[in-house]
């Protein structure tokens, strides 16, 4: 039979939170549990005191500099005589691993005298990584919006300037300006839909309709439109498709799958022709988009279907890193699958197969 003290000790040791206790004011080590050692990648040291914590434990700030001793949670709790929370600590462990840590430092009082400081350490590495992904995404989204907004703003300002100049304009010319502006607005509209899809997919709110669709016609429509979608930058497209391929599906989502595959191929295809083929074997419709561009290394094949990822440097290829992730999500909801065939430098073929009857 365990006594109460043994039970408390066992519970403290098994807490999923690192706990470390030191005596005030000098910081002599008193207690640490197992999770503390797991977070730090080393056991607690009984030979270090306040003023010398950073080096032995590898405690750094987010910029990688040794954490200032005067700002250590232990010291802050002593000064504040109240609980302090510090979440900018990064442990540079001796095994090379970096662990982001949040520390709750709480003073213990014996009467009026501050006798100990108890620090709870939480591993927040995943939280910090998710924050970084979110920040990168916001920055990429703002970048993606700026180019079409900039083009539209320039066009509208210029139209106003021309119209205000008093020179006579032909109907055709004004219609031309308005059409160009409309193209830019549509592009922004599609971009905002893509941004919304992130939350739709994440919260499982993509619902597929089932309408009669002619997949061959839909494909031809997208191919005819893709040049506009890409701001006029589409390479030559070779299309091989049956005259008709009627079935039932969500036409808008299929349109999005085809559009994303084509714009992806155009983006990474280095301006070389893209072949598109559509076929049907009685059960599955198969759409393949093949480019002759930069290709995808074996190591990147899984990653490119993850959100916010792409196989190449963002200095070279703008974008949100969402296209193939959205394709994958839609196709899997259609009970279909994706096949990827690529060699770095030799282009990529992405095929989508969905049940089609």
């Amino acid at each position, binding site marked *: 039979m365990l006594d109460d003290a043994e039970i408390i000790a066992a519970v403290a040791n098994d807490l999923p939170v690192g706990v470390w206790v030191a005596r005030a004011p000098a910081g002599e080590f008193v207690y640490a549990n197992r999770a503390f050692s797991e977070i730090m990648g080393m056991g607690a040291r009984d030979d270090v005191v306040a003023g010398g914590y950073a080096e032995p434990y590898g405690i750094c700030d987010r910029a990688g500099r040794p954490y200032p001793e005067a700002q250590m949670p232990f010291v802050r709790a002593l000064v504040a005589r109240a609980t302090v929370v510090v979440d900018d600590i990064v442990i540079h462990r001796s095994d090379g691993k970096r662990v982001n840590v949040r520390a709750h430092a709480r003073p213990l009082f014996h009467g009026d005298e501050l006798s100990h400081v108890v620090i709870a350490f939480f591993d927040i590495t995943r939280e910090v990584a998710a924050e970084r992904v979110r920040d990168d995404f916001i*920055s990429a989204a703002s*970048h993606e919006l*700026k180019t079409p907004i*900039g083009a539209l703003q320039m066009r509208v300002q210029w139209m106003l300037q021309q119209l205000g100049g008093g020179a006579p304009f032909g109907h055709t010319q004004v219609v031309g300006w308005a059409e160009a502006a409309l*193209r830019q607005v549509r592009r922004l509209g599609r971009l905002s839909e893509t941004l919304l899809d992130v939350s739709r997919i994440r919260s499982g709110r993509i619902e597929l309709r089932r309408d009669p669709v002619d997949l061959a016609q839909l494909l031809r429509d997208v191919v005819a439109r893709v040049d506009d979608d890409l*701001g006029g*930058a589409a390479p030559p497209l070779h299309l091989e498709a049956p005259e008709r391929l009627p079935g039932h599906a969500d036409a808008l989502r299929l349109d999005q799958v085809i559009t994303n595959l084509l714009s992806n191929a155009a983006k990474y295809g280095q301006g070389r022709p893209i072949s598109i083929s559509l076929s049907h074997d009685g059960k599955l419709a198969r759409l393949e988009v093949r480019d002759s561009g930069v290709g995808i290394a074996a190591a990147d094949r899984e990653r490119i279907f993850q959100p916010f990822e792409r196989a190449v440097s963002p200095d070279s290829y703008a974008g949100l890193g969402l296209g193939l992730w959205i394709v994958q999500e839609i196709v899997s909801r259609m009970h279909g699958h994706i096949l990827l065939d690529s060699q770095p430098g030799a282009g990529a073929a992405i095929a989508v197969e969905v049940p089609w009857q």
Partner: protein
Amino acid sequence: VSRRTVLIVDDDQDFRGTLSEVLGAAGYRTLEAGDGAQALVHLEADGAIGLILLDLMMPGINGWELHRQLLQHEHWSTIPLVVLTAGEGGLGDIPRLSKLVELAELLRTVDEYCR
């Protein structure tokens, strides 16, 4: 030699085309390049380029790389360069405009370098 030729280097054809149309209407001769490699072709062929408007993030030879190559060339390194970007980055001391620049400011800047 005419100083009023502007080379627009941007991978977004829509942005590039709009800019070219606007500058064309303002009396400039414009050349368009979708990446650094196309920009180099124009530079080889055309000695009259008075200003380069340069986007940074581009496939192939991007803006940073093109800038490095320009610096190594006796004549091209003297051509004024203005970065026109949607991102945060820049090219050191090189003047930089956001893609959300006001048209008047853009035309003023171009005029300054092409006078």
